[in-house]
């Protein structure tokens, strides 16, 4: 569904990701793990088009999208929840969601409702400015916003990082619910190796911008992965 092939990415004269191949199959979760600075976020930003790919290609549902701008990739079904619980702080929570539903007509309104069903806690906060929500609430808002685009592939960058434990569980449950429902492929970057492997059918370990280990997911792989990550 999403294929990154021989992808090289960098900032200025510094190369960060060196020829990475990652494939995300339909209806499945693929986890990318690695230490801080391994190039995970850089790889994701290149996948969604926020950073240019220096060489290699990004294919979405069979089409080459390497040259497309981020919003064009979104329209083709690639949704992205960036690191750090990002939201449009000066807009209300409702506007954060409405903004995405605007262009999609009735389907947008339906998906807006569905995404609120997934995070019912947001319903009571719709009138509040997103900048005033807690980190966990903003992360739920960010995931809801991504889902309203009607994605085929959902990219999540450290969705539970820096969030209070009770909300972490809600977010993990939501990811499990989403993937169980089918029709959605997820590319998950996650520090919690246990959760990532339990959700994923395939994993990659990234180190210094290269894939150093990959394999099928599942909790029985945890020891191998921890060894590959040297933790």
């Amino acid at each position, binding site marked *: 569904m999403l294929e990154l092939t021989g992808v090289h990415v960098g900032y200025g004269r510094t190369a960060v990701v060196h020829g990475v191949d990652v494939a995300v199959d339909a209806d499945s979760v693929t986890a990318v793990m690695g230490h801080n600075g391994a190039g995970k976020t850089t790889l994701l930003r290149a996948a969604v088009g926020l950073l240019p790919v220096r060489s290699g290609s990004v294919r979405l549902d069979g089409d080459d999208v390497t040259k497309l701008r981020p919003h064009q990739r979104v329209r083709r079904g690639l949704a992205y929840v960036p690191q750090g619980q990002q939201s449009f702080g000066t*807009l209300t929570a409702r506007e954060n969601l409405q903004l995405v539903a605007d262009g999609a007509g009735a389907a947008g309104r339906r998906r807006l409702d569905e995404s609120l069903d997934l995070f019912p806690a947001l319903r009571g906060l719709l009138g509040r400015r997103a900048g005033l929500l807690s980190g966990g609430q903003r992360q739920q808002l960010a995931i809801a916003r991504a889902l309203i685009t009607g994605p085929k592939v959902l990219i999540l960058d450290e969705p539970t990082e820096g969030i209070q434990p009770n909300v972490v569980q809600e977010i993990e449950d939501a990811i499990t619910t989403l993937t169980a429902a089918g029709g959605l492929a997820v590319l998950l970057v996650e520090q919690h190796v246990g959760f990532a492997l339990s959700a994923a059918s395939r994993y990659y370990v990234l180190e210094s911008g290269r894939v150093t280990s990959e394999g099928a997911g599942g909790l029985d792989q945890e020891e191998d992965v921890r060894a590959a990550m040297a933790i």
Partner: protein
Amino acid sequence: MEALVSQLFAGLSLGSVLLLAALGLALTFGQMGVINMAHGEFMMAGAYTAFVVQKVVADAGVSLLVSLVIGFLVGGLLGLVLEVTLISRMYHRPLDTLLVTFGVALVLQQLARDVFGAPNVDVRAPAWLSGAVEILGVGVPKTRLFILGLATLAVVALGLALRLTPLGRRIRATVANRDLAETAGISTRATDRLTFFLGSGVAGVAGVALTLLGSIGPTLGTNYIVDAFLVVVVGGIGQLKGAVIAALGLGLLQAGIEYSSTASLAKVLVFVIIVAFLQVRPQGLVAVRTRSLA
């Protein structure tokens, strides 16, 4: 009492002119961060639009209303062309933008001189705007009241558009976080262009309104550009509410000081007060507070 009311109206009137001049800048400079020195020339273009329309439409009342619409389009299109050809190439280079748009301003002024001649020209005000209305014992010119009404209408319309329409949401989202807006499926390039069209269009409307206050010339815009930037900076970048308070505040201040001294001294004192104010509150009158760093 009469003097107070009269100064109050003088201040409100000056404030409403400042507001019209600054409202477009509140979008292009306040929301997008573009220092567009040609903004005043978009006002000048709006004013000459009124002049040209009056040549075609004889009735002064009809021509004023038609001019407001065409002035908006002329200002907006000029802004759009400037954004697409020059400004879009230097979004991360504010000093270059300042220099280039200053150059564009000079070119537009010369163009106006070549087409319409260097001397000022007059646009006739419609009959229903001649004379004055007595309010609290003070005669207030109808043209001034019209401009006050127009400024109010423009603020309300722009405020509602930003708050309630899909385009308004897109503009505010793009301002809040450009990368995030792109990954939420918004074409930030298209949004930039539309924002610039809107902001420059409001400048055109301001120009049409200024024809009611006196004759117009190629340098009309330069008289307003500095004050307009001051309004946006004092009001607080990115805040429409701040621009409204700042414009009216500065108008009242200027008119108040003028009453007991001269126009030049009032200008100097207003500048001094603004400099002192910005030392204490560099973020301007209205600043947005959020919990997130993003």
